[in-house]
């Protein structure tokens, strides 16, 4: 769609596009808060890793992608899935372990997957998604359709061998993969300074000759512009990029974590001065967008989160027959041994 210059308000985006980013961040925020509530009510089991505070990264990085680009993420992936197009109802139903969940209730919070929207997985072994993303990139080189792969991981994952093996291979083989590290300063409870021998990912990218950009992960427009450059590099030159998005999670590592390892004033400072939604709303107000518009968007996000929870709660559990389904394509090969035929 052609955009006339007069429509552009900020960073090359129209009012509608800017409000779209705002609505997306709010949807993730309210969705995650609702999920947290439902977890405490016992509706959601297992592990639940919330994305609250990091919304600008997924929103800024994924919105410039094409529908046929792939996104592959970690276990803190509800936000990425929703931005890529997954239905919040189906994501919430997955958290509830219901048959209507995106992964039919068999994955849970950490294993969201939506083939239709090319959101290809939440992976819960730290760092393991990066070699997998290389494989997608390799397949895309062969297919030559110009689509690319974007993969998200945390600052803990870059200490895994998988990160280094994947970085080397992606650069060596010129794979169209955008690597995005969401550096929220803590790998679970371990502060960055206790885990990294260096203070940024720049030297690690340099070690593999990979393009590197650091960006304020609380600034959705900055993330978007940075991601766009990396996406262009992947699409046009089939070259990978490592982006380090500086961010902060406002909640614990998971719902089981009160985050006692972080000073209270540190958390409070980030929440009160660096909240990505708050910062973006200030930018929008500076452009003359009124508070009523922003508040209405928040109401819609809250309603969507409520609706998702209601949808999930009213959905059936998987049929017991699902227990042994989808182990493999070959239903007989999936069973190690069959009872004797006689």
């Amino acid at each position: 769609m052609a955009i006339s210059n007069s429509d552009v308000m900020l960073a090359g985006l129209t009012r509608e596009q800017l409000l779209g980013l705002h609505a997306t961040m709010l949807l993730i925020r309210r969705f995650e808060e609702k999920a947290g509530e439902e977890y405490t009510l016992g509706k959601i089991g297992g592990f639940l890793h919330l994305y609250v505070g990091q919304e600008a990264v997924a929103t800024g990085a994924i919105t410039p992608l094409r529908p046929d680009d792939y996104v592959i993420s970690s276990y803190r992936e509800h936000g990425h899935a929703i931005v890529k197009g997954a239905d919040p109802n189906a994501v919430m139903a997955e958290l509830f372990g219901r048959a209507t969940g995106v992964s039919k209730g068999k994955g849970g919070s950490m294993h969201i997957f939506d083939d239709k929207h090319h959101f290809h997985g939440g992976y819960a072994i730290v760092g393991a998604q990066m070699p997998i993303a290389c494989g997608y990139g390799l397949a895309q080189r062969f297919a030559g359709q110009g689509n690319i792969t974007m993969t998200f991981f945390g600052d803990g994952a870059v200490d895994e061998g998988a990160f280094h093996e994947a970085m080397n291979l992606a650069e060596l083989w010129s794979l169209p993969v955008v690597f995005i590290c969401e550096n929220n300063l803590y790998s679970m409870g371990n502060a960055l300074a206790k885990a990294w021998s260096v203070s940024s990912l720049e030297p690690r990218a340099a070690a593999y000759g990979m393009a590197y950009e650091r960006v304020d992960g609380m600034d959705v427009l900055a993330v978007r512009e940075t991601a766009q450059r990396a996406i262009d590099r992947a699409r046009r030159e089939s070259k990978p990029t490592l982006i380090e998005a500086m961010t902060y999670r406002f909640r614990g590592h998971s719902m089981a974590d009160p985050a006692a390892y972080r000073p209270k004033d540190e958390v409070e400072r980030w929440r009160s001065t660096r909240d990505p939604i708050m910062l973006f709303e200030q930018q929008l107000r500076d452009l003359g967008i009124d508070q009523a518009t922003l508040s209405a968007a928040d109401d819609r996000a809250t309603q969507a989160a409520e609706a998702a929870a209601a949808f999930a709660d009213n959905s059936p559990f998987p049929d017991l027959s699902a227990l042994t389904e989808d182990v493999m394509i070959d239903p007989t090969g999936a069973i190690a041994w069959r009872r004797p035929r006689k």
Partner: protein
Amino acid sequence: MRTITYREALREAMREEMLRDERVIVIGEDIDGYGGTYAVTKGLAEEFGRERVRDTPLAEEVIVGTAVGAAMAGMRPVAELMTMNFALLASDQIVNTAAKVRYMFGGQTHVPLVIRMPAGGGAQRGAQHSQTLESWFAHVPGLKVVMPATPYDAKGMLKAAIRDADPVLLIEHELLYGIKGEVPDEGVEYTVPLDRGEIKREGRDVSLITFSRGVHLSLQAAEELAKEGIEAEVVDMRSIRPVDLDLALDSVKKTNRAVVVEEGWKYFGTGQGFAALIYEYGFDDLDAPIGHVTGVDVPAPYAKNLEKAAFPVRNDIIDAVKRIVPQRAVR
């Protein structure tokens, strides 16, 4: 039929499948310039180009992880691991990714992947290069694990594995690459199913339940036993997971006695798994406890004499058979 080596049979399988399906690619360490550590991939890069036949860095996790991802994204990758001992470096991608994604993502994806690797000892390669660890992987739902013993089976099973829609570990044996056997001419189409074993020698007195190099040892033992009037049936299980249990049970129903023969360690090993299933489903057919010939329960030693003592030989099988086949059964 012509006679070719196990190594050539594997190479032909890859070549034919690469000709048949352009989605088939081969990746691994030293498969191009070096021709493959055991020369299995020799000539493939020249014929199919270095886009489809790719040398990788020495990085097993990313080799397998990339192959898994490429498979999920529509390719048909064959990943070669230099030895099964190095599969441990890739075991996260094998066990946590390849075996799990279809199930945990609700059937929305699948992994048409083959991982080839040699296992086994007996060539003085020492403790870290002589292991047979198929039971570690055969334990895991979501994987297929096969171990062909002959050139015919190696070619037919590799072709079937490449066409299979699910992840297959094809485990070769370092000492089998040079053996020869009858294989149909190149281009004559055949595959060997991934869930069926085969009787490699018929017999009425005892079933030798085995796979991989154990098949050859068992055939040698059976020859010797025949001279003493004991007819051993050699049951090549071939598919470790899923297992062809009916084949083993039918054989035991006939012979009423079984010896499980394998090169790996006994405890929690493949043979113990086979024996447990035979006890569970074929108990009434057994006239004696199941014998078990395995590697000695130690890391593989280097010294020639020690290594020879560490792995099963023909006579170990003969002794095990004689322990459970009473004289009266010898006709």
